[in-house]
Each structure stands twice: as structure tokens, then as C-alpha cells.
């Protein structure tokens, strides 16, 4: 290891296992700090985790379910859209929070050394909690509509894992760039709005014309949202080829983000 790399570890890289342990503990500490900070002095508390997906579900049901009569492939439209909105909300809020992570911890970054990459990872992780809270309501909806899950539902952690890497991968890009250019903030907001429309959340994948199918599947959220819907609501196997494309794209996004972040993190303190 070159001396310069050595210097970026806590204790001169004496003990790799200890370094990882320290990184893990710092991440969990920051996670705790974020969660306690986020819900302190709010009246609704964890209720906030439900508000966004539920409001969107109501709006989608009205606009796409009632007015536009979009096909929901035989399941009640509210359930059809909500099962897509829960993972979508995790991704969107995770990316949004992750983008501001470096700038948000400016006072710490300009004062103390610690591995900066922990910040976007921890910020995305805080949104996992919201995901689980919102998923509870999904369970309630399934009971209400009388839809029994099958064993395929056990695949949820796999899809969630892919999605986590996707959200962190994008947050690595955006948080590093946001440290230098604040333009990244509105770009991310706009990008997420367009991305929602380009993902099969409000409509099924089958509504996409065949000739655009491959291009459409390059959006990793296509395979993922459709996958959640298959394994939870339809109780059948997900489309593994679509998921394969999602995994490949996620890997490219994540590795690219990691390299960009690692290339820029030494300049954060001087520019953020």
C-alpha cells in the first residue's frame, strides 16, 4: 500500500478487520443520530414515512385508475400502484437525502478525518426504516383485498438489496458532485420526477411497446418494480432476465459512483 493510501485510514491501516469494524460502528452511530434528529420535534413521527406513498397512491388511483383507466392486470389499482410506490419512495428519498449528505455534514468534514463514504451510505440507510414502515401498510392492504402471498415473497430482501446498491451508487455520484456544484440539487429533483414516469409504477410493464422494451428495461427500476409486483401481489416468479439487466446496470452505476467519490473525497473539505 502506498503511504498516501495509508494515510486515509484511521490508524494507518494497521488492522483491516478493525478498520471495517470502525466504519460499521461509525455508520450505525450516524444512522442513529439521523433518525433521532429527523423525527424529534415532529408530531407525526414515523407517520411521515406513510404520507408520501399514500398520497401518491390516492392520486394515482384517481388519475390513472379511474380517469385514464390504466390496466392494473386484474388486481385492485390501489394495491397495484402502492406496491410500486413503496420501493420507489425508498429509492427517491434515499437518493435525495444522500445527495445532500456531504454538504450537510460540512462542519464535520472540514474538522475531522473519517471515511467520507460512510455519509451517503448512512443517509440512504435511514430511508430503509421508512420502507419498512410503509411496507406494513402494504401488508394491511393485502389483507383488506384478500390477496394471499406465496413463497416468492421471500425474494423481497434480494430485490431490496439490489435497490439499496442502486440508491447508494447514485448518491455517491450526486453527493460528490453536489459538494462542488449546487446545481446538482435541482437536477436530482427533476431527474427523479422524470424517472418515476419512466418506471412501471403507475402502469404495468406490459403497457410498454415491445420495440422499446429493451431500452425501457435498461432503467433498473423497471425490472425491480415489476419484480416486487410479481413476487408480492401476483405471487409468481419475477422476470429474471429483466432483473439481470437491472443488476448489471446497478453494478455499473455503483462502481462508477464509487470511483468518482473516491477520486473527489480528498477535495471535499476545501470546496464544500
Amino acid at each position, binding site marked *: 500500500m502506498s*503511504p*498516501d493510501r*495509508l*494515510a*486515509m485510514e*484511521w*490508524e*494507518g491501516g494497521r488492522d483491516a478487520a*478493525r478498520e471495517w*469494524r*470502525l466504519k460499521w*460502528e*461509525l455508520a450505525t*452511530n*450516524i444512522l*442513529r*443520530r439521523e433518525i*433521532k*434528529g429527523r423525527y*424529534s420535534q415532529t408530531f407525526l413521527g414515523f407517520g411521515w414515512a406513510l404520507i408520501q406513498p399514500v398520497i401518491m397512491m390516492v392520486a394515482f388511483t384517481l388519475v390513472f385508475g379511474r380517469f385514464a383507466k390504466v390496466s392494473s392486470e386484474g388486481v385492485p389499482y390501489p394495491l397495484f400502484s402502492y406496491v410500486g410506490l413503496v420501493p420507489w419512495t425508498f429509492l427517491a428519498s434515499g437518493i435525495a437525502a444522500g445527495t445532500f449528505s456531504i454538504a450537510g455534514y460540512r*462542519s*464535520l*468534514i*472540514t*474538522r*475531522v*478525518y*473519517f471515511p467520507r463514504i460512510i455519509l451517503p451510505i448512512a443517509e440512504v440507510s435511514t430511508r430503509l426504516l421508512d420502507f419498512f414502515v410503509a411496507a406494513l401498510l402494504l401488508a394491511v392492504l393485502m389483507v383488506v383485498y384478500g390477496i394471499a402471498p406465496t413463497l416468492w415473497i421471500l425474494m423481497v430482501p434480494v430485490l431490496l438489496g439490489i435497490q439499496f446498491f442502486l440508491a447508494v451508487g447514485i448518491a455517491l455520484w450526486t453527493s460528490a458532485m453536489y459538494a*462542488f*456544484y449546487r446545481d446538482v440539487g435541482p437536477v436530482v429533483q427533476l431527474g427523479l420526477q422524470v424517472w418515476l414516469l419512466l418506471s412501471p409504477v403507475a402502469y404495468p410493464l406490459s403497457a410498454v411497446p415491445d420495440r422499446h422494451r429493451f431500452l425501457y428495461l435498461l432503467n433498473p427500476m423497471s425490472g425491480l418494480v415489476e419484480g416486487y409486483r410479481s413476487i408480492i401481489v401476483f405471487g409468481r416468479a419475477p422476470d429474471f432476465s429483466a432483473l439481470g439487466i437491472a443488476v448489471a446496470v446497478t453494478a455499473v452505476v455503483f462502481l462508477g459512483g464509487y470511483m468518482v467519490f473516491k477520486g473527489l473525497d*480528498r*477535495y471535499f*473539505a*476545501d470546496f464544500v
Partner: protein
Amino acid sequence: MPGSCVIEFDRVFKQYWLGKTQTLAGIVSANMRRVFCNGQPRQSQEEEGGASRASLSAVRDMSFAVGRGESLGLIGRNGSGKTTLLKLINRVTWPTSGAVRTQGRIISLLELGAGFHGELSARDNIYLSGAIFGLTRKEVQARFDEIVEFAEIERFVDTPIKRFSSGMFARLGFSAAIHSDPDIVLVDEVLSVGDEAFQRKALDKLSVLVKGGATLILVSHDMRVIQQVCQRAMWMGNGTIMALGEAGEIMARYGEQIQAEIHRNASERPWASAPGATVLSEALER
């Protein structure tokens, strides 16, 4: 790096950009000016695209090494690069060129309580800052009582620190940092922490650490403090090393230089020999 060295600077340069970030509006207006004002940009060539290219060399070509258990005093005028040097050692900022090598855990006593969160209790903050310094939860647990006792906040362990007085906050920050078994301690302008009794205690704790093998870098404008605490001293000016050597000798040379400057100022501008200057020169002679 030789085994006994814990800090090593190898031809280190650090430049800061002083200009603003380049903006689209800046680029457009710069180009508009070029087109419509007969190719003559209004401002200097430096200001292209609204971003000033001006940069400041805070540290220039510094090479030195500090050994384990050594204490080095840093002295120099404001803007001589002392703080940048500490930030480079602390790995907050990276050298523009050259290499900075350090070994072991570094704590900086210039940013006390940097990782603290106001909504969290003192207890949670001790664990949080421990994690930032690179301690495991168990290691913090083992030191917890000592940290609380040293900070003299036993009664407020579960109080959110946004309710702390500034003295309590600083004492807790100092205590949490100093109890993290640092190998290198960076101190800027000794300890304006707490009352005199606490400062005494803090200095004693520092000297115990140094006797135990920790390395101390001490920035101070008070030459007596440096002479008391440090074996070696470095005089910095304009981002470079003016002199490096035995503390007493360096302080004597620096003192002469400062006095010469004061006398020169006094003769050029008689009003400059105000009481403040007299007090300072008296202090220097002591």
C-alpha cells in the same frame, strides 16, 4: 517511514483557490463582453468565466519529521500557515503536491465537539464522537465514566447537549477527545476550555499523554508556553519553515524578530507604541 517517526512531511505544498466557482452566467457575460466590447474583456484576464484564478499558497515546500513522544511548538504570524499545517496532519485537507505521512490516531483539540449533535444526550454524543475518532463501542464503554468525570458533567449525562452551557460543551468535547488514546495530539492556542482549574487539569492530562509516548503539536502565540511544554519548535512564515530547532533557541530568535518589528513600527508611527505594544515587549523581555 522510519519506525520512530509519526509525522513526516515530504516536500508538501498546499494551494487554496480563492476564486468563486465558475458559473454559467459568468461565462456568458465574459463572452458577451468579448464579442460586444471589441474583444476587450472588462476585467483582467484572470477573471475568465467569472472565476478568479487567484490562488494562495498556504504551505510551500515543507519537509520535516516528528518522532514518537516528541512535542513540537509552532509559532509564526497570523497567516503563516500554522492552521493549514494542522489540517494537513489531521487529514482534513490533502496536499496539492508532496506527501504527508502519519501513524496512529490523531485528535485535534482545536475543534472541540465537532461531531456533537445538539438533540442527542451527552451519553449518545460520547459514543458518536468516539466512533468518529475511531473507537469501537466497547472501547468507548470502557472509558465512559472517566470521560464524564473528567468533564465534570455527571449530573447531565442524559441531558440533550443543546441545553449545555458553552463551558460544559467544551469540557465534554475536550474530555471525549483526550480519552481516545491518541498517538498524535494537535493543540491550537492552548485551551480556552473552562475555568482556570479545568485548564490546569487539561494541561496535566496532556503532559501525562506525552510522557506516555503521544506526540504533541502545539500552536501558540505565547512563547513561554511553548518553551515550557515543547522540546523543539518550528517558526513558520509565509507557508515555509523559517527555523526549526531547540525550542529555547527558536523562541529567542523569533522574539528578536518580533521586537525588531515592533521597534521599527514604533519609530515609523509613534502612535503605534500604545500601551498594548509596551505590554507585549515587556512580556517578551521577561
